[in-house]
Structure formats: C-alpha cells, structure tokens
C-alpha cells in the first residue's frame, strides 16, 4: 500500500500579512513558509499508519504544486518522515488548476490513499481535495477525522453534526482531512533533517491547465474599533447605544 499526502506551501501563521501598494497581491517579501497545518497533520497520520502497518504500507509520498521556492517545505516534509516527494513545477493558481496538475502528474502512478487537508491556511478555498477526486475519478470522503487500517479494509471516520460516521471506502480513494486526524504535527529531528538531503524529490513539468479564478483585489480587514464599556447596571444606556450608535436594534 502507498499513501500520498498533498502539501501546500503557506505563509507561517504568525505572519503579519501585508499587501502590495496597488492591493493586487499579497506582499510575500520576508514571509516564512510552512507546511499547511492540515497537511502537516495528514502527513503525521500517514506516517503513524505506516509505522504501525507492519510493513504493509510501503511508502508515504508527499506532493505539491509549486515553484522552486516550495522546496524547503518539501524538504521539511521529508525530514518529518515522508519517503519521497514530487513537485509539479508551477505556480499554484487556484484549486481547479492545482487539482488538474496533481491528477495529471499521478496519471501513471498508483496510490491507495490520497490525503488532502480540508483547506489551506492561506486562501482557505476548501475545494482542492474534492476536485482532485473528480479529476482522478476516485471516491472521496470529506471531513475525515480519523483513518484506521484494519486488515485489507480502510476505516474512515467522517465528522457529521453531533457525531461521526464510519465509512469503508473502496481503494484507492481521496480523504479530505480535518484537524482531528492526528494529535499534533511531528517535529523533525536533526537526524531526520540530514536524512532528508538524501531522499528523492522529483520535479515534474506541469500540464496545460487553466485556472477558473481571477484575483481582482485584496483588502485588509478594517482595524478593530475601540471597545466602549457600559456599566452593568446601565441597561438604558446600552439599549440607547445599540439603537442609535451601532444601529443594530
């Protein structure tokens, strides 16, 4: 069995996002890049499954659509424990474009389980995983919070309101995972980082593909207005403010 984990290269979550002067793009100067947190958890679960599979899972591959600048993030995924990596050499434009690139690159490859994060922490589009399953004509399970391998059967927990359902998808399939999939992401060890140097990172050229989204303009959120404190006994003033100032009642 082989597992593929799709990884997106995103700005560190502590980054203070700045826009370019004309607000047409995010200013990426001096941004630190990380593995998308959902993907990092997916990778962690994939490695746990491999380690406890008694050799049944031969390898865990990580895959990204990105330019050369995404390679440190792929090296980190290898340092965490992935066996090899594939990078489609293209600037990811939108989910449609990315999903097509991955599907194309996997045309002649076989993976039993393909893991995608439910969203990426940069644009939060939440579309890639399901689009990928469509392009690959594979079943997809979304909102996955756990995956277990039980003999030849894969059991997947899918979050639903008030609980979860257990699904046994046919292999191969795409699992769109959410945060509960692993407890916490693995931290690579220094030895893992050195080993990552020697692991294969294959670069494949992109296919013809179009993006369906156009980014017109970005706007930063309005700064938070000052907080007005109203005395707990002064309900009248509160009502007056909600009515005349906030104009919500």
């Amino acid at each position, binding site marked *: 069995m082989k597992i593929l984990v799709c990884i997106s290269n995103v700005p560190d979550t*502590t980054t203070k996002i700045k826009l370019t002067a004309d607000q047409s793009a995010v200013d990426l100067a*001096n941004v*630190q890049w*990380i593995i998308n947190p959902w993907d990092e958890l997916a990778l962690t679960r994939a490695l746990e499954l491999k380690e406890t599979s008694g050799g049944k899972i031969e390898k865990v591959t990580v895959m990204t659509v990105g330019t050369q600048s995404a*390679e*440190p993030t792929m*090296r*980190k995924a290898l*340092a965490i424990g992935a066996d090899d990596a594939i990078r489609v050499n293209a600037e990811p434009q939108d989910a449609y474009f990315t999903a097509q690139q991955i599907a194309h690159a996997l045309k002649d490859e076989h993976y039993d389980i393909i893991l995608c994060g439910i969203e990426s922490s940069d644009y939060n589009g939440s579309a890639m995983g399901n689009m990928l399953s469509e392009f690959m004509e594979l079943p997809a399970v979304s909102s996955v919070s756990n995956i277990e391998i039980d003999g030849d059967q894969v059991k997947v927990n899918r979050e639903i309101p008030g609980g979860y359902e257990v699904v046994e998808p046919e292999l191969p399939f795409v699992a769109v995972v959410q945060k509960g999939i692993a407890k*916490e*992401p693995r*931290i*690579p*060890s*220094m*030895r*893992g*980082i*050195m080993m*990552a*140097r020697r692991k294969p990172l294959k670069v494949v050229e992109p296919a013809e593909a179009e993006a369906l989204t156009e980014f017109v303009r970005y706007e930063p959120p309005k700064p938070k207005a000052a907080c007005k404190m109203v005395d707990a006994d002064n309900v009248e003033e509160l009502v007056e403010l909600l009515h005349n100032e906030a104009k919500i009642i």
Partner: protein
Amino acid sequence: MPYPYTPPDYYLLDELLSDEHKIIRSAVRDWVDRSVMPVIEEAAQNHEFPLRFIRELGELGAFGPFIPEKYGGAGMDHIAYGVIMTELERGDSAIRSAASVQTSLVMYPIYTFGSEEQKRKYLPKLASGELIGCFGLTEPNHGSDPGSMETRIRDMGDHYLLNGAKMWITNSPIADIAVVWAKDDDGKVRGLIAEKGMKGFSAPETRNKWSLRASVTGELVFDNVKIPKENILPGIKGLKGPLMCLNSARYGIAWGAVGAATDCYNTALQYSLERKQFDQPIASFQLQQKKLAEALTEITKAQLLVWRLGVLKNQGKATPAQISMAKRNNVEMALKVARETRQILGAMGITGDFPMMRHMMNLESVITYEGTHDVHLLITGADITGINAFGIKAKNR
C-alpha cells in the same frame, strides 16, 4: 506564553542561512513552544529540571548535532549548532546549558580525544539522551585559574586512583558519566571518564541558586576512586584539552544569548504597543522607544557577530580569542536587554508571567561560567597586546 514569538531580523540575516538551517530552527522552535514554554516558569520557580527534557532533546537531536552520524550525531555544521542553541536559550538558559554541556563538554572531548571504543561506547547513548554527561573542571579553590587544579590521578599500574573535588558542575547530580580533568603523576592535565556507581564517587546537589533554577548544579567528589586505564582520554595531555571543550561551548553560548535577548525584546515590543498610559501606548513615548531601539541595535550586532563567527568556525578559522569576544559581547548584550526590557513592563516585568526576570537571573550564571566576563576581556587584551594580564603566576606559566 504571553505573546507569539516573532524574533527580529532587522538586517535580513535569514538570507544568509540555508534552507536547512531554517528547517532546523523551526523544528527546535516548535519543540520549545510545545515542550518548554508551558512548564519552564514553574520549573524555575520550583528550582527543578524536568528530566523528560533530556529524552526529548535526544529525540530532537539537540545533543551533538555536529558529531558525525556514525556516532549518533547529525553531522551538521556549526551554524546549525548555533541556531539550535539560540532557539533553546529562547526557552531558558537552563535548557541550552544542558545541551551545551552534553554536546560541547562531554561528546566533543570523547569524540576529539577519545579512543574508538570510548566513542562507540558513549557517543550514541549521549546523543539519544540515554546517558547524561557532565564536565568537571572547576574546583572549590580554582575557578578562573583551572591550571592550578588540585584533583589528581595516581598511576597504580593496572588502574588510576582519582582524588579531589569539583564544584559548580552542571548536571552532576543527574549525570551517568563525568568527563573529569585531573593532573597525573607528571603534573600534566589528563581527561578521564568517571562513571556513576564507581566506589568513592558522589555528586551532591548545590541548592538555593537564584540563577539557572531550572538547571541542576552540583559537586563531584572523588575519594580514592578506581579509574580503569581504558577510561582515560588517550588523545590529549595538558590544559589545552579542557580549553578546546570550552571553546566549543562558548561558541554555542554566544549564539544562545541572542535567543534570550530576542525573547525579551519580542515581549517588550508587543507589550509596549498594547499597554496605555496617559491615553497613549507606552511605545509612543520616546524613552520607551530608546530602550527598544537600542535593544534591537545590540541584538542585530550580536546576530551578525555570531553569524560571521559561524562561517569562520565552519572553515576551521575561528580563533579562541574571537570566540571569547563573541561570548563576552553577546552575553552582556542579553543581560542588558533583559534589564532594560523588563523596565518597559513596569511591575508586570517582575512577575513570572513574562520571561525577563528569569532570563536576567539566568544570564548572571551565563556571564560567569565558561570564563567570566572579566576573563574574556583579559583574553582579548592578551591577544591584541601580546601581554598576559592574568596575574604574576599566569605570566610565569
């Protein structure tokens, strides 16, 4: 954790680090965030070192990062070692001290001066944290002047007999082995490996420290301890042995101090933007800006210093005097930054809710051990004038 840790990089030094260095940094930073930050304040208040740190540091690979892989290290360069030290000391100087001692004062001498059997026996277990090591040089009567040490080994034919006492030894009470420096029958300084459990060897703890409270410090007492001949480090004779170890450790400390300073600066900057007095953020007052601006200037200089020193060390060109200069400058820098930024927080700054007092108190040890602030100045002075000012006895040696 009061604020997210976003350390300054005013001169874009990141561009001088490799991608691998950045992965190393983020790994160690994540470990510190996850494992150290939630408990370090309480550990320091309680004067205790959480032992699980040793195992976790071993798993992370923070012990012996520059030791070759075949002995359990990671085979990394010296900038990687420096980056690791910076991140650990952002957590606490106690954590960095544990890694410094294990790496530079225990693994380094065994790797550099040890026999092949010694390397195979000890290094992989020291790297994984299965074994804890300590380094015994300082004695009750000899600190800055270790060349006058009184600890002795006597050749008994098939073994040596070790007598003497060492003091202020990081991790001695919890260590499994000690790299001990003692004079032989010819008065030459020799290195040896003493193992816990050897008859006549004890390691009582030193309590009541106001500094490095989350680090264990103690003595090493040797009363007619039988040391097998194969426990002597064969590759070195003379004071040069321990001094080479100190060089490696001091190099790491120069990097480490930057982490303590950036933690203080980062905290003070964010606090000053939030805290209002006279209806304004205190960051808008010139006096507070002076503190912040000067702290950032000094941090930036210190970052540049260690980066360049790292390049020289990778090329095998860093001199002991250059390392002394960086250790002295950077530790004093960190201590001053801790003091100044603590004031920015007013009364809040004295509490354990913020890291400044802890770093400040820790740095009093850091500015003392591995050569005091004065001693490093004397090293620079001797290097530039050619005149040794350590005292009459030192001149005659």
